[in-house]
């Protein structure tokens, strides 16, 4: 099929028309990983949660860490598309759709991890049949449920005009695209309505995301365990979510750029701007971390100090200092200077932050549990192959969604790009005669 009929952004439709060997190879590898992880979970489901590395007093591990981690990754999507939309930052346009997809993937995969963490998963419907609103976990069910619905609509709405283009271009896939396009004709009335709806959703998404990450934090904050019972946890989680989300988005951007040849759309400018955002968040992370740990250190409360030292120089020290390296040292080294704030530099910093924020979630969940205030024999929590396999499958599932999504829909919002070009053209056209 000829790409020219899609207009000057034809290259964006290339993956929908041409399917190379690479695509099948990637899909096959991802499906294999997912099948492997799925098998590991079936084994866990039939035998019991005991096949994982969990034990007492650390009954929460990789699954709860991933629950927070993946949902937090999604915040990068909300931030880039909703905040930047509200502030009308034009440079966001080529990234928004991938960002919104990342939000949906993060929320879905994160939520599934809660079910993995249940020791009696076949009863998870009790969360809806017998909810106790006083429990922070039910706050999560409500907040994440709303967030998931909003983010799905927020991903879908801006796709409608592009889907309509596809409906007209692919008569064979009319059933799929025709249904999803909802009779879009591109009339000014439809456009106005769509834009107003998108703006409304952007405004709704932000407070919802803030609530989601706060109640995630409050799962820990509402208990009376040392270094969990802290008022800073809500803001700390929100900030951490934005931080890791931007890091993950940078990684997604560079892959899309390479694989789909979007060099023209995802330019060094975008990586530079996202890199600057990441730099700001790295410094904010430093501030929050100092605020948390210094307060605990000066308070010098016995049970809190046991956890504090376990993180600083005990068995969890590699995680703590690894987190300082990946969340602070590497990003600062790469992002401060314009010389290293290149595409490669920002992406390395982004990936480093994602790893670092996983370590931070580990440091939030595990050390407090591993240091109960009563003197039990203390085991170290070591995730085993079941948990790692399920985690690999979760990551592969997100990758697979991106690969398949890019096969059926343009991963860059074409109509918004066109609109921007038109706007730019009219501004230029008006400006020139006046100048003369």
């Amino acid at each position, binding site marked *: 099929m000829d790409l020219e009929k899609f207009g000057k952004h034809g290259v964006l439709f290339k993956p929908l028309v041409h399917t190379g060997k690479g695509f099948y190879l990637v899909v096959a590898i991802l499906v294999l990983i997912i099948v492997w992880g799925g098998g590991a979970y079936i084994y866990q489901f039939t035998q019991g949660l005991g096949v994982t590395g969990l034990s007492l007093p650390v009954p929460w591990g990789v699954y709860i860490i991933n629950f927070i981690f993946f949902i937090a990754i999604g915040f990068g999507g909300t931030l880039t598309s909703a905040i930047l939309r509200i502030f009308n930052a034009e440079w966001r346009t080529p990234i928004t759709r991938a960002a919104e997809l990342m939000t949906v993937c993060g929320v879905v995969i994160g939520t599934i991890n809660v079910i993995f963490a249940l020791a*009696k998963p076949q009863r998870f419907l009790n969360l809806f049949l017998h909810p106790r609103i006083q429990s922070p*976990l039910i706050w999560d069910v409500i907040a994440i449920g709303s967030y998931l619905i909003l983010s799905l609509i927020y991903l879908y709405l801006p796709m409608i005009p592009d889907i309509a283009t596809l409906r007209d271009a692919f008569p064979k896939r009319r059933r799929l695209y025709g249904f999803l396009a909802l009779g879009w004709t591109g009339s000014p009335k439809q456009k106005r309505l769509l834009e107003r709806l998108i703006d409304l959703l952007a405004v709704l998404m932000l407070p919802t995301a803030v609530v989601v990450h706060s109640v995630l934090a409050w799962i820990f904050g509402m208990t009376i365990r040392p270094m969990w019972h802290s008022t800073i946890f809500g803001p700390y989680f929100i900030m951490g979510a934005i931080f890791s989300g931007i890091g993950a988005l940078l990684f997604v951007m560079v892959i899309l750029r390479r694989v789909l040849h979007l060099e023209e759309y995802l330019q060094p400018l975008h990586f530079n701007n996202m890199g600057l955002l990441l730099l700001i968040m790295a410094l904010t992370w430093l501030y929050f971390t100092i605020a948390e740990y210094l307060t605990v250190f000066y308070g010098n409360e016995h049970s809190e100090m046991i956890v504090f030292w376990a993180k600083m120089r005990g068995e969890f020290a590699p995680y703590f200092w690894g987190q300082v390296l990946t969340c602070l040292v590497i990003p600062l080294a790469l992002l401060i200077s314009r010389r290293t704030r290149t595409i490669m530099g920002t992406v390395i910093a982004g990936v480093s932050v994602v790893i670092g924020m996983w370590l931070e979630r580990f440091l939030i969940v595990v050390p407090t549990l591993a240091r109960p205030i009563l003197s039990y024999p203390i085991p170290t929590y070591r995730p085993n192959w079941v948990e790692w396999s399920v985690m690999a499958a979760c990551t592969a599932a997100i990758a697979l969604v991106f690969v398949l999504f890019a096969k059926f829909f343009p991963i860059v919002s074409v109509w918004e790009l066109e609109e921007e070009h038109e706007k730019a053209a009219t501004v230029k056209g008006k400006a020139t005669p006046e100048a003369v």
Partner: protein
Amino acid sequence: MPRWGMVIDLDKCTACQACTVACLAENNVPIVGPEESLRHRAISWHYVLADVEGEYPHLRARFIPRPCFHCENPPCVKVCPVGATYVDEEGLVLVNYDRCIGCKYCVTSCPYGVRYVNWLHYHWPEPMEQYLNPEVPLRPEGVVEKCTFCIHRLERAKQEAADQGRELTDADLVLLTACNQACPASARYFGDLDDPESTVSRLARSPRAFRLFEDLGTEPRVYYLAEEKS
């Protein structure tokens, strides 16, 4: 309405662990086996903690028997998302094994570590499955379980008293739970904390009485007696 509580005299306790063993047998506590035990999966509703203070050679060690404290303000009940763990009319903190989804939030929020998880499907080696206590339900794999203050014995005692047309007396209650009954040092007492005449309420008011981590505000219903408090 009674308010059930327990008093444990640390100065009398010899840490013989008879309480722990009696509890395991009484409550059909699953036997997890040596392998699982090494992985810290052992279930023990009652546990004897070793509390060591100071550094060699100036050590001070003592043992603290720990049942569930059945707190007045239980952190575990507050966080349960499905109402599987609850406080009954007489103040006992119990688990509805048919409701529990195994999220383990209660396990992480209990500051005393009294809650245990059925990590796998545990079974009793032959011929031990013949000795299960018919009064205590077996727990399915995946749910959380903990000390019930031997609620089945309590119910039976109430029934017996009612059959004889009398009120429950302090004498019926003091050694009611399996752990108390097994204690060779008579270091443990059970009863109604709201009855000013009861043994537990008298002992709980003694100057030797204290509770663990009172500053947490959980208001445990288990009191310890010791000349030297920690």
